[in-house]
């Protein structure tokens, strides 16, 4: 097991290296200039932008800049933001927890909705419940997050005035009120992301369970006289979970993509909104670092999915 883990991590390294190389090249070749605003300002002499370009080594050849970036990265130096003039890791650490909380709770919400609904719908296929669940799931993943986000704002913030639509990272309250405020402002971003995911997952759980329900061992289990509940939980769901786990891992990039949009709409100070701000300002080191963090997270979740397989299906062995 631990051998497998080490091997997987070693395999992950070249893929991360490849990702970083592609990202770096694309960013370096992309048009735009972090000091555009300086250059546009008539009151700033052109030498200022020129000296900054030189200081940040922006006129060096791409491969040289990449090697420099890589060696610094290996030493734990994430680079220096052109725009904020702070170290990039400071910026990211400030915002990563928020993103993880929002994404994490939305994934939990998605699973909490998708698992029971999907399983129940599959156990009673083509029932009224199944029809409704399938339709809702369809609507759920057909609507893009930027649309549902705006819709929720219109309904709950503007028409009903129940929830705030500007996310505050500093809540001025203590004790229970603090958590209540945080909960209130998280409802909309989390449900936008979570319900979108839930739509996709429900459909998937349903079809995975349907595949298993018809298998002989399920009939055997029922014939043994096991309670229906035990049959579903222990025999059906556990076997149906393997493809679902794969999907959850595969969906991670989509979740991050959705998080970027949702963070922007609700002004959630996570790394998604940091990414957008950095792209708008052409702040290459920050773009590079954030996309790299996303890449690492995706690889990490794939690894976790692979490890979960073994737990779900003991026939899969790690060698």
């Amino acid at each position: 097991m631990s051998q497998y883990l080490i091997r997987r991590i070693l395999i992950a390294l070249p893929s991360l290296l490849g990702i970083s190389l592609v990202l770096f090249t694309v960013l370096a070749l992309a048009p735009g200039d972090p000091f555009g605003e300086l250059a546009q300002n008539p009151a700033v002499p052109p030498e200022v932008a020129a000296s900054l370009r030189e200081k940040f080594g922006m006129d060096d050849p791409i491969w040289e800049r990449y090697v420099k970036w890589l060696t610094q990265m290996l030493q734990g130096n994430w680079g220096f933001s052109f725009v904020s003039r702070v170290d990039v890791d400071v910026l990211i650490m400030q915002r990563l927890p928020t993103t993880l909380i929002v994404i994490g709770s939305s994934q939990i919400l998605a699973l909490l909705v998708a698992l029971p609904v999907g399983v129940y719908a599959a156990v009673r296929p083509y029932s009224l419940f199944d029809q409704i669940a399938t339709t809702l799931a369809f609507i759920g993943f057909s609507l893009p997050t930027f649309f549902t986000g705006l819709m929720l704002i219109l309904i709950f913030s503007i028409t009903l005035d129940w929830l705030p639509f500007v996310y505050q990272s500093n809540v001025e309250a203590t004790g229970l009120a603090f958590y209540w405020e945080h909960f209130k402002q998280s409802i909309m971003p989390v449900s936008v992301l979570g319900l979108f995911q839930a739509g996709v997952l429900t459909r998937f759980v349903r079809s995975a369970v349907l595949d298993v329900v018809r298998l002989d061992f399920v009939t055997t289990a029922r014939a043994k006289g096991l309670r229906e509940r035990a049959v579903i939980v222990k025999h059906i769901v556990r076997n149906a979970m393997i493809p679902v786990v794969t999907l959850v891992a595969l969906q991670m990039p989509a979740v991050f993509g959705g998080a970027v949009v949702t963070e922007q709409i609700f002004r959630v100070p996570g790394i998604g909104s940091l990414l957008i701000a950095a792209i708008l300002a052409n702040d290459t080191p920050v773009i590079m670092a954030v996309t790299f963090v996303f890449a690492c997270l995706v690889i990490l979740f794939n690894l976790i999915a692979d490890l979960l397989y073994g737990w779900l299906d003991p026939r899969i062995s790690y060698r």
Partner: protein
Amino acid sequence: MNERELRGLIADVKEGNLSRRAFVRRMVAVGLTAPLAAQMLAYNGVAMAQVKSAYKPTKAGGGGVLKVLWWQGPTLLNPHFAVGTKDQDGSRIFYEPLAAWDDDGFLMPVLAAEIPSLENGGVAKDGLSVTWKLKQGVKWHDGKPFTADDCIFNWKYASDPAAATYTIASYKDVEVEKVDDHTIKVLFSKPTPFWADAFVGARGCLIPKHVFEPYMGAKSRDAPANLSPIGTGPYLFEEFKPGDLVRGKINPNYHEANKPHFDAIEMKGGGDAVSAARAVLQTGEYDFAWNMQVEDAILKRLEEGGKGRIHITLGGSIEHIQLNNTDPWTEVDGERSSLKTEHPSLTDMAVRKALNVLVDRQAVEDHIYGRTGKATPNFLNNPERFASKKTSFELNIDKANKLLDDAGWKKGADGIREKNGVKLKYVYQTSINQPRQKTQAIIKQACQKAGIDIEVKAVTASVYFSSDVGNPDTYTKFYTDLQMYTTTQPQPDAGTFMNQFTSWEVATKENKWQGRNITRWQSETYDKLYRAAEGELDPVKRAELFVKMNELVIENVVVIPVVWRGGVAAVSNKLNAPLSGWDNNTFNIKDWFREA
């Protein structure tokens, strides 16, 4: 408008027949900046009297939390590095200059005891120096006194090329001398008519010597105080998350009595302009939101929410169309639009004049910008002419047709005019931005009716406004026939603005397209006028020179102005927030208060 007329107007102000404000407005209409106009009055003995403050609260604090929304949040809080207005606005909460520009272009003392003038001996007659008296008893947030040494330090800090500050231009050509602990003297190397630059406004904010001294030059980026400001402003620093949040609490030792009104301030960043407008105008969650780049129709609808209003400050931002004087389609020595070429048709005066009457500014104002942009033929033009032009749009197309017919541009079989094998076909570029694309469509349609074929082109803003030497689509390269963007006039002095038509500023490959003259129009007369204005000490004579330069630009249709764009802010109905088109949004945040 000539010198005699200008002097007449100033005399009117002196005798009280004309209000100061009316005079300033008049000068702005002829293309001068408000601060320049105010300076003319001051020079002629009409004091830069302070506009009466509407500040009502009788004690400091008690106003609760002031919540403001900047949909692009500040990313750094050191005023010497604050390139973007968002950063300047953020750092202005904590830092202050010696004096600030109010909405009428008058100087308002902040850390200065008084505004230097000829009468009080602050401004030297020879234009070689200006003496500032500093306010006494001002303390930095950490309790240390503010003195002349701090001013000297800021001059040294900003003018060090290794630090690459944004403020370098204001400080690098001056010397600053300490007279006593609360007096400094700014020395200029040559007679300088516009002395209020160093230590004034957005670029004049002062940082404390005792905090920043160990971090000068190349080390400047390591200063911890870059992220946790210690200034003299009305609010003490509490928290900063770049791009997300700036938080401050009331400064109990603020140097003005009974100020500020609010107990704390919160500047939230991120999101988009429409929802920011919504948070102020419709739900009232926030008190103030910055830079509402939203169509006026939407703003009007949101205003019906009744919680707030739109406030428009007119500074010097002009959306205008530039005409290329060089040929963008021929490459000479590795660059297009080279000075060695000449545009085959746009150099014809008849074509330029025809284009000028084909721009339907009124339609652009009515259908696109609404209250946020005023139609103007008036880059730098006078208002009387304006009135006669906007009267009829149809007439303009006829006039354009006639102008072109008379000049010998005949319509071909395809309906496009041509002469000697040169067709009137133009590529017209701008950045991707909805109002701009709509404007392009309006102009294209009008030109079609006059037999001019326009191909519109839109470039992503981050490319178009970059200084990327390798990219052909930047605005400074100007590799098309026509282009449109907003030129801003952040400098109160017209001098820095007007140099964009001088011969030596032409953007070329040689200067990596960093020159400011993008149209590549060259005129000896203009150059001479500009040189004369540089050394002219009498503000009235100088103003006359600027007016003449303006006229030259308009007569030769070097550019075609479209709309005059204002700074648009959303303000809660309860908030009283004095704003200025010549300084930062937060320049006077000490005077903001909530009406009871």
